[in-house]
């Protein structure tokens, strides 16, 4: 303790005089508390603001009337590389008006096309059918999950229950390092190597498809699912394991009949969080899935996922256009889904884990 700051000493006893009858203002304590509080609330505020922004940009799609709904995308695209002078803008605006009048005579409201089966945002008659994108996302996610979940869960069971400490000390960090792998690198690998190899093996038509993309995204999700599953398994109280072994259960029986059932909620949470990662994964989807928005149940057809759609089209869309709004709508949907998934993992499964191990007293 730093006594130099306390000068008052009792002359008789030599002890420091410490008074507690008056509250003392400690600036550094106050400052630290307030700053930490501010930072915490700031991060929440940022998330909420992003949420609001995305929704606000998506919202017009639902109240848009026919007049403003016409596609201007083709025209605008033509203006790329143009002079960009005031003159041409005016001209373009004129064109837009004329064009929209013609189209509107036959076209339906763009928001009404949201549930159609075609995603064709850039055309004279744009259609914003989200089904192919949903289906594509679902397909890729399912493939990725079917690939990643069993592998990572089995790997976790191995390292948590069977591996010798030295083996575990190697395997665990190596798999966890994979989590830091930039997804663009995984995407690149999928695009250049995996796509060719799989095509040679399975002999399908389109090189980039849901299967290749799904496997690549599975690779990205493995570290997350593995780490959280491993944590869930090692969090099972040691006393359970001792009890089981003490009853003459083998290691395998202990792992599968005692530890695994006790860790099920945690493993579910791991899978759900992995699902969130796969769901929002953009770069791998963009690079490895072929990006063709079509409705097909064949896993070897190209697909376009929701997130890849935003990634591919946002840079080229006209600000304030229907297409722009639809992309934000997709963004909001992604946001809601991943939010819901995380919430389920966080609140439901984690509570389940806690309730399981705490005996009522």
């Amino acid at each position: 303790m730093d006594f130099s700051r306390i000068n008052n000493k009792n002359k008789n006893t030599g002890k420091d005089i410490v008074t507690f009858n008056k509250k003392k203002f400690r600036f550094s304590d106050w400052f630290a508390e307030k700053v930490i509080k501010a930072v915490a609330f700031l991060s929440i505020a940022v998330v909420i603001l992003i949420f609001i922004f995305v929704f606000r940009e998506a919202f017009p799609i639902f109240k848009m009337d026919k007049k403003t709904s016409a596609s201007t995308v083709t025209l605008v695209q033509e203006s790329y590389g143009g002079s960009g002078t005031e003159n041409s803008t005016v001209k373009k605006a004129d064109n837009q008006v004329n064009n929209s009048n013609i189209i509107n005579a036959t076209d339906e409201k763009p928001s009404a096309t949201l549930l159609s089966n075609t995603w064709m945002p850039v055309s004279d008659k744009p259609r914003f059918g989200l089904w192919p994108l949903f289906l594509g996302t679902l397909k890729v996610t399912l493939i990725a999950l079917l690939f990643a979940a069993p592998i990572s869960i089995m790997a976790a069971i191995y390292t948590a229950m069977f591996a010798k400490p030295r083996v575990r000390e190697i395997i665990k960090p190596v798999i966890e390092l994979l989590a830091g792998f930039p997804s663009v690198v995984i995407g690149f690998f999928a695009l250049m190597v995996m796509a060719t190899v799989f095509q040679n093996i399975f002999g399908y038509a389109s090189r980039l498809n849901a299967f290749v993309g799904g496997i690549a995204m599975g690779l990205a999700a493995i570290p997350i699912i593995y780490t959280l599953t491993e944590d869930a398994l090692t969090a099972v109280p040691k006393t359970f394991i001792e009890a089981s072994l003490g009853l003459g259960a083998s290691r395998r029986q202990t792992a599968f009949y005692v530890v695994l059932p006790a860790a099920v909620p945690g493993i579910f949470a791991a899978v759900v969080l992995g699902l969130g990662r796969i769901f929002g994964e953009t770069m791998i989807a963009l690079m490895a899935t072929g990006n063709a928005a079509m409705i097909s149940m064949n896993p070897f057809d190209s697909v376009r996922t929701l997130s890849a759609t935003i990634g591919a089209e946002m840079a080229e869309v006209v600000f304030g256009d229907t297409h722009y709004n639809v992309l934000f709508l997709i963004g909001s949907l992604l946001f809601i889904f991943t939010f819901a998934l995380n919430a389920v993992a966080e609140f439901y499964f984690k509570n389940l884990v806690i309730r399981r191990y705490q005996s009522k007293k």
Partner: protein
Amino acid sequence: MNNIKVKVKDLSLRYGTNLALKNITMDIPEKMVTAFIGPSGCGKSTFLRTLNRMNDLIDNVTIEGEVYIDNINIYDKNIDVVNLRKKVGMIFQKSNPFAKSVYENIAFGPRINGISQKSVLDEIVERSLKQAAIWDEVKDRLFNSALSLSGGQQQRICIARSLAVNPDIILMDEPASALDPISTAKIEELIHELKQDYTIIIVTHNMQQAARTSDLTALFYMGDLVEMNKTEIIFSNPAKKQTEDYISGRFG
């Protein structure tokens, strides 16, 4: 004196380089209660865990010497540890029922041994719970979580669970140290009942408990077996000064 059930010869155990048990030699008779007493860290629990090879789970443990159970050296290379632990059951200091129903807790042991017939399982569950003197308390809530029971009840569930696999020997590692006096009395009563059929080895901090429950008592100190004899003799007329000091509370 009954037949010798467990024969330990020159057993030494190291955690890494730390010598935790030094040349322990002892005989434990069948169908009697043998108590290990001694201060914390004296090696009594460690020694108990060598008797069903629970120490195998800990890294860095090296064991020398021999432990014979029914004249078979359990540290032989060909020993099946899984089946050994079926014969030598264990009750832990902290009651550790699985997060399952009472019924499932008891049925776990028979199930892993391949018994799946409902009527057989029912019978084993009832018999084990009756043996552990807890049947009357839980018969109406067999399918409630075992964790909803009180600490003393949980410990008796654990005893019932180990009885369900028909062990010969039951090792108890301070089974009542976390329990209130009434639950402790019930456990001690139970130990008294069980010694008709089982060889019981109990580790305890509590010297009165050792005096009340056991037929033989062994005092451990710093990894050494100080003295082992009939409980009456240990507590009334010990051969060594160290034993007398310990039981009269002068150290430990």
